[in-house]
């Protein structure tokens, strides 16, 4: 379990994050939503110990501050927003960097094959021999996800659950691959691991997340199931944008039509 209690982050005298608490259980996908500059990535960086923070963060009951880098690397893998490489690596070499910490959880005999398997998971079969720098942005993002998957390939290792931290994992992807990557994250959680993902697409969050954390100006504006968090009032408050939340017939999944926020006169101008 990932637990954060009363976490605050200050960067050059400015409070970016203020008293944020959250719990992310294994088996669950936790989505973090919020407008630009609301502290989503800062929260992720605090959870990764990239930023100094006040408060308490623990992974599987162990204080993050007391873990060594190599220990945290075996417990969680992190997908950053974007990664440019200064040297001409092949796709396979990039994905294999995920094996640096050496605890993917697969037997040694299968390790050499792991990059291919991870690439297949992100729909990049046959890309292993290509140069990373020659791929499109969306393809590079999926290569990085394959690298991250290699690092914690087994969602549970020796009875200990492991975690994926994903910072906007689908930001550069087409609709097919958005769904595919969210499926990968979902099945990681279903297999007993935990996932924390920053998402901008509220409908993807509603479809895939077990719980949603909404941030507004560095504070928690809402934390709960999608139905609890995705409400007209909360969205209007968090995103400063009046939108209507609707519900699909059968499972009653909330969904948001961005069209509901567009002013009527603006549309009429466009038609005219």
């Amino acid at each position: 379990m990932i637990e954060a209690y009363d976490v605050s982050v200050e960067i050059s005298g400015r409070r970016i994050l203020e008293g944020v608490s959250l719990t992310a259980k294994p088996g669950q996908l936790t989505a973090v939503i919020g407008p630009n500059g609301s502290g989503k990535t800062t929260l992720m960086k605090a959870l990764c110990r990239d930023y100094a923070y006040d408060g308490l963060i623990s992974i599987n009951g162990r204080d993050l501050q007391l873990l060594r880098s190599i220990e945290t690397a075996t417990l969680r893998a992190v997908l950053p927003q974007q990664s440019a490489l200064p040297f001409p690596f092949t796709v396979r070499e990039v994905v294999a960097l995920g094996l640096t910490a050496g605890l993917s959880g697969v037997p040694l005999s299968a390790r050499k094959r792991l990059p291919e398997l991870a690439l297949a998971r992100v729909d990049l079969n046959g890309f292993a021999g290509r140069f990373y720098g020659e791929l499109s942005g969306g393809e590079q993002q999926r290569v990085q996800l394959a690298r991250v998957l290699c690092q914690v390939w087994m969602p549970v290792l020796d009875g200990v659950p492991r975690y994926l931290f994903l910072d906007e994992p689908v930001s550069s992807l087409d609709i097919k691959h958005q769904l595919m990557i969210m499926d990968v994250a979902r099945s990681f959680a279903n297999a007993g691991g935990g996932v924390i993902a920053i998402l901008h697409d509220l409908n993807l969050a509603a479809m895939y997340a077990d719980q949603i954390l909404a941030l507004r100006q560095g504070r928690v504006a809402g934390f709960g199931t999608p139905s609890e968090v995705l409400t007209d009032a909360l969205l209007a408050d968090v995103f400063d944008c009046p939108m209507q939340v609707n519900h699909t017939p059968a499972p009653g999944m909330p969904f948001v039509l961005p069209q509901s926020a567009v002013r009527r006169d603006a549309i009429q101008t466009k038609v005219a």
Partner: protein
Amino acid sequence: MTAALSMSGGLGRAERLAGDRSSLGRLAIVVLAVLLLVTMVISMTTGASGASALNLIGSWFGGTTADPAALLRDQTVIYNIRLPRMILGVLVGAALATSGLLMQGLFRNPLADPGLVGVSAGAGLGAVGIIVLGTTMLAPLTALLGIYSLQMASFIGGLITTFILYRVATKAGQTAIATMLLAGIAIGALAGAITGVLVYVATDSQLRDLTFWGLGSLSGANWTKIMASGPIIVVALTASAFLAKGLNALTLGEATAGHLGLPVQRFKLAAIVAVAAATGASVAVSGGIGFVGIVVPHLLRLVIGPDHRYLLPASALLGASFLLMADAVSRLVVAPAELPIGIVTAAVGGPFFLWILLRRRNAIAW
């Protein structure tokens, strides 16, 4: 996932995987080791004196027809001049190429090189400082360090400049290439200015020492220099082998390297010390020899890829061969005189560097 894994099963030894260049890397290391042996033999058998290494070897087995006087001369030339020169060339060449590669990995930039960004100038300042002030202001230091004082002074000079450069050019783990090169120019100019002042106040005999030291060549090679710099270079090269995996992780950026389990701060410190030690020890014995640290890693990266596990040993081997070949050229083109080796490496490296810039100009905007 488990099912997919068990289905794929084990992996045949001969099987080649797409995008896997590790066998190429291993092959390159073997080929470069053979190349180094060949250049070592060439270095031992060529020279202005015409001394014959073959006759000398023949004499070990008693089967030579050469007269004893010529044999004695050959023996002196080869043991006291060519052999130390060859060993020093191997050590310095390997050190220059390795420190260039380490710096490129550390700064995540293929254009970083101790010679270009002022680290060699800083190491040179340390060396000049000990030559000029070694009997007065820095006398306790010379007394303490003995034959290592020149090496240690260069090392400290290189270390300080690398730290300054890193602090100026790197913010939140990202190195701005323009800032790095400009900071390097500033640091190099500053070190050069202080060096100039020291040269100005130097006595006549110190000036002679400075001239011998600053030629940028292997011509002053002797066993004392090897004893002083050799151990430092060997330790730095050995240590760099342990940095390979970390350098690979670091190419993804400092934050991501940390997420992969690298203790980033300690790792950077170790890499900076290794760069300064290798640069300092080589500058102390051979002056500034430019471009080896740029040309060698870049060429190898084109052939075997950027995996430091193979790139580090391959660069050390090719750096050694490259410097021995440059030394052979510098001895032969104007024989019996010789060119400073720095002229030869610059003649090859300058155009090569421009070629890299042309290649990169369209690829990356900075």
